[in-house]
């Protein structure tokens, strides 16, 4: 009898396993198709019926992307995206750690109010103030500048909140003994709190990295000079070529190049990524 129950249980699990695996493969197929199209010559990619495996696989599309005069902007855009993303990540980590520390560890007037303000900031999307933000950067003559993308990226109420929650979980005794030994607050933050907070800092770093690298609407608004555009903005310009040329092979090569950094970061730090998203949802 118990053997039969065990069998039906296993059968259930097998069926569920097949279901999940099919779903996972379906989710992956568009990405696979993007990669396969990118190594198919432009003439072959629009042959009907479409073929998954290219008959004449080539890296020509990738070479073209970086060498044709029309597309040298892609290389430039990758550089721009990097120049914007790295300082955004570092600055956000610093600014958020500094803000989270007193909110977790010190007593002072107005703390409750500030926490509420930060929670509010998590709810109010930056997007609703893009018009006046644009006018401000315009009046500073900062359109088409890197700081136009970096500075707004540094405001991360979510980051402050995430780090504060994590700092709260670090036992206070460590800090007390360090203070008795005469360590300054700054030294405690840098030599005790932050080294213990690597998981939370990693989650936040991945978030800011993905958010800045993939940011679309704001860069589309402030970067009108092709030399300053980030990779998603350059990609949006391919829309205008779609009606005429159908160089899907080349376009997919640019798409792969644009996605590679985020996919690599995601796969290598999958755990921190999942933890970060989970915290954003759990702590309300």
């Amino acid at each position, binding site marked *: 009898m118990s053997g039969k129950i065990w069998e039906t249980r296993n059968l259930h699990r097998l069926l569920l396993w097949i279901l999940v695996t099919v779903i996972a493969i379906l989710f992956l197929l568009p990405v696979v198709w993007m990669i396969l199209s990118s190594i198919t010559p432009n003439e072959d990619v629009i042959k009907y019926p479409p073929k998954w495996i290219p008959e004449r696989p080539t890296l020509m599309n990738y070479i073209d992307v970086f060498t044709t005069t029309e597309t040298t902007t892609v290389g430039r855009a990758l550089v721009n995206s990097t120049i914007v993303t790295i300082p955004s990540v570092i600055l956000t980590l610093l600014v958020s750690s500094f803000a989270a520390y*007193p909110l977790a560890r010190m007593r002072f007037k107005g703390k409750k109010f500030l926490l509420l303000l930060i929670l509010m900031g998590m709810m*109010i999307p930056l997007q609703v*103030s893009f018009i006046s933000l644009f006018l401000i950067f315009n009046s500073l003559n900062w359109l088409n500048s890197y700081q136009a993308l970096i500075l707004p990226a540094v405001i991360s109420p979510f980051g402050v909140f995430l780090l504060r929650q994590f700092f709260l979980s670090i036992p206070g005794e460590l800090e007390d003994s360090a203070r008795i030994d005469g360590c300054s607050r700054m030294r405690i933050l840098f030599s005790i709190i932050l080294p213990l907070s690597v998981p939370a800092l990693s989650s936040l770093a991945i978030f800011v990295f993905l958010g800045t690298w993939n940011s679309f609407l704001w860069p589309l608004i402030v970067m009108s000079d092709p030399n300053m555009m980030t990779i998603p903005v350059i990609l949006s310009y391919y829309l205008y070529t779609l009606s005429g040329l159908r160089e899907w092979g080349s376009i997919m090569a640019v798409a792969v190049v644009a996605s590679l950094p985020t996919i690599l970061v995601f796969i290598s730090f999958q755990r921190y990524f999942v933890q970060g998203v989970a915290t954003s949802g759990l702590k309300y």
Partner: protein
Amino acid sequence: MTKITKRPGLLRKRMTPYLYLLPFLAFYFILQLYPLIQNFYVSLTEWDMMNPQKPFVGLSNYKTLFFKDYLFWGSVGATLHYIFLNVPLKIIIGLALAILLNLNLKGKIFHRIAIFIPFVLNTAVVGLLFRWILDPQFGMFNYYLEKVGLAPQKWLLEPKWTMEIVVLVTIWWSIAFNTIVYLAGLQGIPEELYDAGKIDGCNAWQRFLHITLPSLKNTTMFVVIMQVIGSFQAFGNIYMLTGGGPLNSTRVMMLHLYQVGFYYFKMGQAAAISVIIFIIVLILTIIMLRLFREETA
């Protein structure tokens, strides 16, 4: 004597927390709160980029939107259409995927990576990729439709089904968020509850209805509000897939705002649209916080 020497130290000590908070608060006030308030002011002026004068016009921008701009009401309709398709589907599918991923089946790392990967692609990539897959002439999708005996369609070029397609692509791209939040919620449910249910003779479906769903109430509320707020801000996915077309059927509020502001440079009117979006989002946020307080009180 001691009092005098102590004071500066005390002041410094009192100031310390604020000094740590200063950089963040400076960014927060200058780049988030101040623009938010200035936005209200801009919405009350005729802020034409060409005209150096910015005359104060009261509520005239709002009047224009409400009574003269049929595209604005169209964008409200498109946004609601998007929300009513997007939010329920993403909740149901997000929860279903979370339950499946929580079963600890073989190869779960592969399953997770495959389902979460689309989430890290940027909207421009997602838009171009699906324009290619759905290409009426050469696309993979029509090819397989024909193979199973269905008529190929001019996807994204005819108003019919376009919003549905946009939402399906959006689900593929962003379902990871809901799935991860639900996964965390599921892992927070104590195992003993399920054991007790089994002892009481509940089958899997009953356990889902009476244990899983009630335990996920808070999570679901959070996800619903995040999705609704997020849907009001939808821009990149729609801009890249349809540009608001065909025949304005997918022209949501953010797309309308973008065109009014950055094609026609009517900043006052665009600011008015963002104020309207802000007020809607604010009301939803307040409702959520209220519900949450009742829930935990």
